[in-house]
């Protein structure tokens, strides 16, 4: 069966945007780590290391998990003069990533 190129283009848009709008309508959509799928603000919580997101600062994580910023920096061989206002995602390097930080905090919580 032959398809008109205009129709083909229209189907492409309908399928592509339709899938996205469909997921959005089903509540499966979030464009930022600052909010969850219901639009509620996400804050770091000591009860769950998975609440740590890339936009959070060293200071926020330090406060929520009651860990000195200096301890975090030294544990991951980060420069000691790193500002506490630095976001997690801006610290990513060979020695640091959020998954490692979560694992480190979890271990620290279980072995205080």
């Amino acid at each position, binding site marked *: 069966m*032959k398809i008109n*190129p205009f129709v083909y283009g229209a189907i492409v848009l309908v399928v592509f945007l339709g899938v996205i709008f469909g997921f959005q309508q089903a509540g499966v959509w979030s464009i930022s780590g600052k909010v969850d799928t219901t639009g509620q603000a996400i804050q770091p919580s000591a009860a769950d290391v998975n609440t740590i997101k890339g936009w959070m600062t060293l200071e926020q994580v330090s406060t929520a998990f009651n860990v000195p910023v200096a301890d975090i920096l030294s544990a991951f061989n980060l420069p000691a003069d790193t500002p506490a206002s630095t976001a997690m995602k801006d610290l990513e390097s060979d020695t640091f990533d959020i998954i490692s930080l979560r694992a480190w905090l979890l271990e620290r919580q279980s072995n205080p």
Partner: protein
Amino acid sequence: MSTQTLQVQIKPRLKGVQALLTHQTVRRLVQLAIAAFITYITVVHVVAGESSTNVTASPEAFCPFGGLETFYQYIISGGTFVSHTHLSNLVVAAAVLITALLLRSAFCGWICPLGFIQDIIHGFSAWLQKKFVPVRKLFRTISQRGQPVWKFLDKYLRFVKYGVLVWAVTGAAIYGVMVFRDYDPWSALINISEWIVTPGLIVLGFTLVGSLFVERPWCRYACPLGAASGLLGKLSPVYLKRNADACTSCKICTKACPMGLQVHTATTITSVDCVSCLECVGECPRDGAMEVKVGFPLMAK
């Protein structure tokens, strides 16, 4: 075949406004709209800043490849993402893959802003060559001298994108970070306001300069999303057909193909590299010689 029959088969030449009412104009408008949307998102995000209390989407939140990179982490961790990705990345990736499954790599040809930028640069190069004789001579000399080597390299460089796909996806799965991000020209472009020189910025430079000489160099050789989309598109029921009876092998379709496919010698165009832009269909001067068809997946019939 009589001369009269041949004349009937030639498409009428469109003039004025009618010449603009083609599927290629629609495609360009769609690409432009998507690029404008991403530009708007980027500007709003940069102006608001990371520390803003207003929630603004990073343009990275709309990158479909981020969805492929974070998929493994999302599944095994029960809902967490690798840095710089969100639920939106998974959704847009699903949209790209479903589109590929149904309509081949139409995302690449109709929607992808990086593909559009390469198209624009190559169009600018063609305009320069048309307007200025010295530029045309320079490009012709480079093309003639480099053609034998390039023809050889082109065949093998097309496999690089599969390597990039495997490296980026498995790297993110193993290390939990986007190992490809620092080398990604799209990431470099949407984060250009950070003024950080990354390997991705250098790749972006090569891509943009390379687009002056070769159409869509990133898509042809290195795009991991195009590789995934092309492979999945093999299962699509949609294909392009060249009707040998109506075709005069004028090669206009092959010259029009931005991916450098030999359209004029194929019966059905089901290449993983085809971005379904339908340039070949639009440029073909013969009525019915190039068509978009729906058939049985994998059989192209």
